[in-house]
């Protein structure tokens, strides 16, 4: 439009001027103002200017130019005039042609316009007619339009009403055909309307009818739901429909869960029944085997086991189902159906897409809560059953079964954790596994302890078995312990017993470690739990099992010292010696070996402080020391008792002249020799102070001739008592104080020295309590000489024996009514003879 090119506010006068200017430019005319300016500037001499004055120009040329120039100018001028003329001619000719054609065109146009005008007139006439008709039509149709719209509305309404009236019948039909979904959707469509118009009796009737039918339908659905035999898909449809029927979701959840619960509970009861069965079976088995165990586990049938009684705790209960079977059953039946229930429940109530008003009720949250409670409840019962079953697993024979069972148990619970992310069930399951593992360690510990005790009992039997007629006895009793190391007709010697005992213990410990190690195997799911990585290894296995067992060994050894000392020494001394050596071996090597083994097997990371090897070694050494001390004490006591009885029961005043060494002394020497042999089997010789080869003779002669003489000589002078006391006191000044019951070192000489010290000191004290006649004193002299001859070789420092024997004879002399000592030579003769 024009408004686009010209500014809207331009007035028409201005527009006209622009057009003029354009035309002037076309015809070569300048604007008046401009032309005047150019004329003024160019002056009259410019031939092309508008103000050219030929007179002035001519005059100027005449004045300024020469003739030749004028001539040239004139010819040039003529030439220009000519060219201008020809130009003019062509111009005129061209314009003429144009003019002619323009005239033709105008003429033609004049004709055409005429025709057009006629047609335009015709058109306008037609249009007027159309307008007229149209107005006429619309005028007639005006009244009927509203009526049609109304009719069409009525039609739809009627259709709806028909639907409503037909609804009960339709629903009934659906019900018959069991097309529940259709029925529900139909009812849903009608429900609002019916609700809205329920004040009208007819609608009310329909509504009631529908209600009844739907009630029936819901009933059927519920029945179906309750029956439960239907497939999951059916069930879910059922639930969906029920939900749509405004059935309270909570109730549905409850029903679903209670239904599931009854099923699961039946399974749990099955498990429980099995548990009871196995318990009863076991009981009856126990009572059965009570009578027949002797035949069942005869020593011969188990060559590896120390004895039947030892092996028993390591037997798993054969009666009833084993734990793996039980857990398998639990997993397959209970856990898998629980998972199914969870899955379908979630499908039904939690994960379904929510639409319409159902979304607002926040069903998933409620349903989820219910599910958790449900699962927790059932899982708790299941766990209690499993725990009961695990607790029944007392036998520690085959740990792999238990570990596999636990592994399966744990693995299956992971499924629940995947299904039910927030549930505490898997962690509780892990807890159970941890508890079971802990329990297991305790059982192993007690089994080891029983084993140790039983082994000791066997050793005891082997020691008690008569040495000479061992053939049959040791084969059945202690022979089993020695196993194949010795032929059956030879009695087990102490070193062999020690070796087999320590081997048995070590092997047992190793096998237990291997069993426990199963808990941390890589293919076991729970082995990567933090408990099994850390605490189980360090606190459980290392501290709870290995360290506790070693401590137990030390402790029970110490108990042997304490209990036996007071109440009549029930422990055979050889056992004490054996145990002492065992503890010492533990101290030197076994403990560190076992702990290193454990640390390596279990890669124990010491997060928590653990008992150091040195502490255990110290404890073992202490136990060894205590046992050896006790051994010395017991052996010393046995010999002391003999000596004491022999001194106390004899009437030393009225005894006859000595002819023999008393039998007791011979017995003492014999016993000492056999102790020497016994200790020598287990302990090294030890160091003694150097002495010459004939030391017994030499020292004795000194003792009896010089010292004895000095001692007895003064008794015949009045100042005697002072002098003897002085002498004995001086003598004591130079001898060291003797600790009678002092700790011994771990070698033979020290042990023997201890025993001899105790015996001789007893002899001394007993002698001091008696009064002697002449021959009594002489008998003591003979006895002491005899002891002197044999005992020096056992002790570390023979001077000790000399000193004590000296004291005995000295004391006897003091307590003698008629102290006249026997000739040294006679004593020697008697001793050599007897």
């Amino acid at each position, binding site marked *: 439009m024009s408004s686009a090119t010209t500014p809207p506010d331009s007035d028409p006068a201005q527009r006209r001027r622009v057009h003029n200017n354009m035309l002037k430019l076309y015809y070569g005319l300048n604007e008046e103002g401009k032309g005047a300016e150019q004329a003024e500037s160019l002056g009259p001499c410019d031939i092309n200017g508008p103000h050219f004055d030929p007179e002035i120009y001519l005059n100027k040329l005449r004045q300024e130019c020469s003739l030749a120039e004028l001539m040239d100018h004139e010819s040039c001028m003529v030439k220009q005039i000519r060219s201008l003329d020809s130009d003019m001619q062509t111009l005129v000719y061209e314009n003429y042609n144009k003019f002619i054609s323009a005239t033709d065109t105008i003429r033609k146009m004049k004709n055409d316009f005429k025709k057009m005008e006629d047609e335009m007139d015709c058109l306008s006439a037609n249009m007027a007619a159309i307008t007229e008709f149209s107005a006429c039509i619309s005028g007639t149709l005006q009244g009927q339009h509203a009526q049609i719209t109304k009719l069409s509305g009525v039609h739809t309404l009627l259709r709806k009403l028909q639907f409503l009236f037909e609804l009960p019948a339709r629903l009934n039909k659906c019900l018959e055909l069991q097309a529940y979904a259709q029925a529900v959707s139909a009812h849903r469509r009608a429900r609002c309307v019916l609700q809205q118009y329920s004040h009208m009796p007819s609608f009310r009737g329909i509504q009631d009818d529908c209600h009844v039918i739907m009630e029936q339908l819901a009933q059927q659905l519920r029945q179906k739901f309750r029956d439960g035999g239907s497939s999951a898909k059916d069930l879910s449809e059922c639930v969906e429909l029920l939900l749509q029927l405004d059935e309270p979701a909570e109730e549905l959840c409850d029903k679903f869960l209670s239904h599931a619960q009854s099923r699961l509970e039946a399974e749990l009861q099955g498990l429980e029944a099995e548990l009871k069965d196995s318990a009863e079976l076991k009981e009856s088995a126990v009572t059965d085997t009570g009578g027949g165990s002797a035949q069942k586990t005869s020593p011969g049938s188990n060559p590896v086991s120390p004895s039947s009684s030892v092996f028993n705790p390591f037997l798993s209960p054969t009666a009833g189902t084993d734990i793996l079977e039980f857990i398998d059953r639990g997993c397959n039946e209970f856990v898998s159906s629980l998972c199914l229930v969870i899955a379908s429940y979630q499908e039904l109530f939690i994960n379904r897409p929510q639409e319409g008003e159902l979304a607002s009720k926040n069903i998933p949250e409620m349903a989820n809560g219910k599910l958790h409670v449900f699962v927790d409840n059932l899982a708790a019962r299941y766990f209690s059953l499993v725990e009961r079953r695990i607790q029944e697993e007392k036998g520690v024979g085959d740990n792999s079964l238990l570990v596999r069972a636990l592994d399966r148990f744990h693995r299956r619970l992971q499924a629940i954790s995947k299904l039910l992310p927030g549930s505490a069930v898997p962690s509780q399951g892990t807890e159970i596994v941890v508890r079971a593992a802990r329990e297991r360690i305790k059982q192993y510990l007690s089994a080891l302890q029983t084993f140790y005790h039983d082994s000791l009992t066997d050793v005891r039997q082997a020691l008690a078995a008569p040495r000479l007629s061992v053939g049959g006895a040791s084969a059945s009793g202690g022979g089993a312990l020695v196993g194949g190391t010795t032929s059956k007709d030879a009695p087990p010697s102490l070193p062999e017993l020690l070796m087999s005992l320590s081997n048995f213990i070590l092997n047992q410990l190793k096998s237990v470690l291997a069993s426990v190690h199963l808990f941390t195997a890589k293919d076991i799911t729970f082995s990567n739990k933090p408990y099994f990585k850390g605490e189980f290894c360090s606190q459980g296995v290392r501290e709870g099992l290995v360290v506790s067992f070693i401590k137990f060994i030390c402790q029970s050894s110490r108990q042997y010292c304490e209990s036996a000392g007071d109440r009549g020494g029930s422990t055979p001394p050889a056992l004490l010696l054996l145990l002492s050596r065992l503890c010492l071996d533990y101290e030197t090597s076994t403990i560190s070996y076992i702990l290193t083994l454990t640390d390596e097997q279990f890669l124990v990371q010491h997060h928590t402080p653990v008992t150091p090897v040195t502490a255990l070694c110290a404890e073992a050494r202490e136990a060894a020391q205590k046992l050896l001390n006790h051994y010395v004490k017991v052996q010393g006591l046995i010999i002391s008792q003999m000596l004491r009885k022999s001194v106390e029961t004899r009437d030393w005043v009225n005894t006859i002249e000595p002819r023999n060494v008393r039998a007791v002394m011979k017995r003492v020497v014999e016993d000492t020799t056999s102790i020497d042999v016994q200790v020598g089997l287990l302990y090294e010789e030890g160091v003694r102070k150097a002495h010459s080869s004939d030391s017994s003779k030499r020292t004795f002669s000194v003792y009896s001739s010089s010292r004895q003489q000095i001692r007895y000589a003064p008794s015949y002078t009045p100042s005697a008592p002072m002098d003897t006391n002085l002498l004995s006191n001086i003598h004591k000044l130079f001898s060291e104080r003797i600790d*009678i019951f002092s700790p011994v070192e771990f070698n033979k000489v020290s042990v023997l020295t201890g025993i001899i010290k105790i015996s001789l000191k007893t002899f001394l004290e007993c002698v001091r309590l008696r009064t002697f006649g002449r021959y009594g004193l002489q008998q003591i002299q003979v006895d002491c000489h005899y002891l002197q001859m044999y005992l020096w070789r056992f002790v570390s420092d023979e001077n000790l024996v000399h000193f004590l024997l000296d004291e005995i004879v000295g004391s006897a002399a003091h307590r003698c009514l008629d102290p006249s000592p026997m000739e040294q030579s006679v004593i020697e003769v008697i001793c050599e003879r007897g």
Partner: protein
Amino acid sequence: MEDDAPVIYGLEFQARALAAQTAETDAIRFLVGTQSLKFDNQIHIIDFDDENNMINKSVLLHDAGEIWHISGSPADKAVLTTCYNKTSESRVLTCAAVWRMPPEWESGSHESPDDSSNNPQTLELLCHLDNTAHGSAACVLWEPMGDGKRVISLAENHVLLWDLQESSSKATISSSATLEGKGQLKFTAGKWSPHHNSTQLATANDTAIRGWDLRSMSQIYCIENAHGQLVRDLDFNPNKQYYLSSCGDDCKVKFWDVRHISEPVKSLEEHSHWVWSVRYNHSHDQLLLTGSSDSRVILSNMVSISSEPFGHLVDDDDLSDTEESQQDDKGKEPLQDSIISTYEEHEDSVYAVEWSAADPWLFASLSYDGRLVINRVPRALKYRILL
């Protein structure tokens, strides 16, 4: 003052018998009986002068025989009993007798000690506790805190209760009991309980300790196997009526509550040989003295089973001190059972230890070689107990 230094007195003869003179409460006095088969035996009366740390001795002759046991009357300080060996022909019998010290001994010894040693006076025999029918006497016990009229002698397996009449010049057996059993039973030691109106007696034979009711002369309890070996001595806790301690050849000292005899209340094993003698301090029953044939005397502080487990109770009338004491109590850590000290002055077996009757902080020990050592409780401990 060298308070803690031991005072040593040497006898010429070997000796086993030691007793504190119970009736004497002013002077610190001990009686020692010697053992010699060849010479006349003596009773040494050892007076200890606490101020000057000196010993005054008086010697009385006891020519009846070597003395195995001695004890002083609780009522009359001049009266004492001994058990002594009488050797007649080829027979040795241990007899018991009541003696009176000659009245001049005290004055005489003080004026010229040399005289008395050269010419010792002889004990005056009051009466024999005739036990020839019953066998050798092991010991004679005076009724504790009694009037010096009743003694018990233990002879072999018999308990004989004697009444001393006519100022102790006549002794009659008022009742007796006999221990029956397998084998040769023989009492080794006994103690008359100071509790229950002095109606109870405890005896030791072999490894058993027995309690007797003196009214019915019947056994009231028996601790079988009280010690692993022979029981050598016993003593009643002076302040706790059911507690007694015993010692024996198993090197142990045990404490018993006679109401629960299955287990000892406590057991100590500090000696390295037989323990021959055990004595409670008369006033502070946490202090316990033991003597052993390892030649050592050990003083133990058994606070936990004493009558003062929480230290000395503050007397109500010490009002001025109460505050300080209470502050002290707070500062004190609970006392522990411990060995206070081990005395090693003896060279030979120590067969007897005895607290002084007059000074509760002083005690004597006697070894076989005739060495009597008088020691005191360390002063630090003494103050700790008192304050």
